[in-house]
């Protein structure tokens, strides 16, 4: 019982830390740094959506960046080409991303392991190809420029706090999700799919639901990104988006949820600060990833957690 209590306490601590750190940041940092923090929040949500599959169900997806970008495309298209309201656009973006996730899921539940990775990669590539070639809708390589945010969240600070609120709410939902009976079935599938079936679980149905739900969360992140970036192009749906989300989850710690915030912060800060000094910042990212894999394969938060448990 004590382990359950301490797990809840740990998660509560995670919520409080995110709230306090990200909540007070705008008071102490420049507006440029605040926009980086804003981006960190959005990508932490994408990383968490990947972490649910990778860390709990044992399925590493390389398609969630595309789901994220689909939502971004829909929001920007709806507001700037169609001229609709941004609120409705966000809703539509999330709905479309969730539906596409369901289509992805119908294929992806048939496989596991490296085949799951390759299949989600291929599905993501299809999305990227469509966005690149369907010029009349997506603007091809030129992308589409947005029309700015609604008045209520037009100022950077207002938008920052709105993002924080949405991301915290989503984090809470994901946290409940992985701790629910359904979340436990995902961990069961990760450990032994054959045992799950012989216990009466239709494992494909469970994986389908899990994939679709994580697609919803990636879609929310993508909609926030549309409002944040005000521009979308094929690079938003390309493979590197998925890879970055996965790297964030891994560096933070797979299966820890809150590690995604640490991973997103590490990678985005690296991207922004190191790139000021060298164009080869991706080399630094590569080295960082290798070092993590060798010395802390459970990620930053996973390793901290292990050290704490050992100390007791």
């Amino acid at each position, binding site marked *: *019982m004590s*382990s359950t209590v301490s797990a809840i306490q740990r998660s509560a601590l995670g919520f409080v830390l995110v709230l306090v750190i990200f909540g007070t940041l705008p008071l102490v940092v420049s507006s440029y740094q605040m926009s980086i923090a804003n981006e960190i929040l959005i990508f932490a949500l994408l990383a968490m959506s990947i972490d649910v599959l990778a860390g709990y169900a044992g399925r590493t997806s390389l398609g969630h960046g595309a789901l994220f970008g689909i939502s971004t495309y829909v929001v920007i298209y709806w507001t700037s080409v169609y001229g609709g309201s941004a609120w409705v656009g966000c809703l539509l973006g999330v709905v479309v991303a969730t539906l596409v996730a369901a289509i992805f899921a119908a294929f992806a539940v048939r496989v596991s392991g490296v085949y799951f990775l390759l299949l989600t990669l291929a599905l993501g590539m299809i999305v990227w190809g469509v966005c690149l070639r369907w010029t009349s809708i997506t603007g091809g390589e030129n992308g589409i420029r947005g029309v700015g945010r609604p008045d209520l969240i037009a100022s950077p600070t207002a938008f920052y706090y709105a993002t924080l609120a949405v991301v915290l709410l989503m984090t809470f*939902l994901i946290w*409940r*999700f992985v*701790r*629910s*009976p*359904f*979340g*436990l*079935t995902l*961990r*069961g599938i*990760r*450990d*032994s799919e*054959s*045992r*799950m*079936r*012989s*216990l*009466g*679980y*239709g*494992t494909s149905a*469970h994986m389908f*639901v899990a994939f679709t*739900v994580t697609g919803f969360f990636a879609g929310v992140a993508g909609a926030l990104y549309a409002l944040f970036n005000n521009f979308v192009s094929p690079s938003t749906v390309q493979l590197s988006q998925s890879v970055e989300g996965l790297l964030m989850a891994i560096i933070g710690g797979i299966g820890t949820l809150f590690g995604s915030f640490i991973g997103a912060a590490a990678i985005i800060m690296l991207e922004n600060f190191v790139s000021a000094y060298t164009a080869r910042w991706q080399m630094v990212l590569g080295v960082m990833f290798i070092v993590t894999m060798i010395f802390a394969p459970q990620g930053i938060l996973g390793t901290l957690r292990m050290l704490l448990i050992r100390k007791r």
Partner: protein
Amino acid sequence: MSDASALVLENIVVAFGALKAVDNVSIAVRSGERHAIIGPNGAGKTTLFNAITGVTPPTAGRVVFQGQDITRRSVQGRARMGISRTFQITNLFPSLTVDENMQLAVRGNGDGKFSMFGAAELNAGQAERASAALSISRLDTRGAVIVSELSYGEQRQLEMAMALVAQPKLLLLDEPAAGLSPAERIIVAEIIRSLSHDLTMVLIEHDMELVLNLVERVTCLNNGQMLAEGTPNEIRSNQLVQDVYLGKAR
């Protein structure tokens, strides 16, 4: 083949290419009966279990459970009908605790497994069933332990607990005592003996002495084919069985 038969296997064949791992096996298990399947390694015992549970659907023949033809039903569909099994090679959720393994086992046949934002804890009735199955399997005090940290014997006991907690109508035990020390084997035998006699049970076991004292009927397989069927005493004195399985008389 009266309606008292819980499980009827009719001319089951399971072929892997040219190899017939199970060749024309027919067995009828009465409701409440304890039936053992014995035979040397490679006799097709586990393959027959896989045909019953749907892991490897039979190439030919029929599997009838409680009067229903289930030959083509999915593994999980059969589990929900009340067929529960243990695995010869321990098949648990190693990174989860004993309690979490039991939660998954309890919910498998019931509702609540799709509950996404509900509490992870079992409801009162389910919790009672889980703790009853754990205490039958003598794991009552081990609930919070991660399964990979259990001893091998305890893992075998958990296999039993997870099969029992589903309240099966048919329990399939695939070498429940495999790899256990003599002392641990006695525990497993006692657990099996303590189970309700309403439960139909099919048991695969290598240990002849263990099995012949636990069951009412025995089927002996050899090279995928049925060699003999009868009461434990008949099997003990059967010359064919003695030759292939117990070894020829010295």
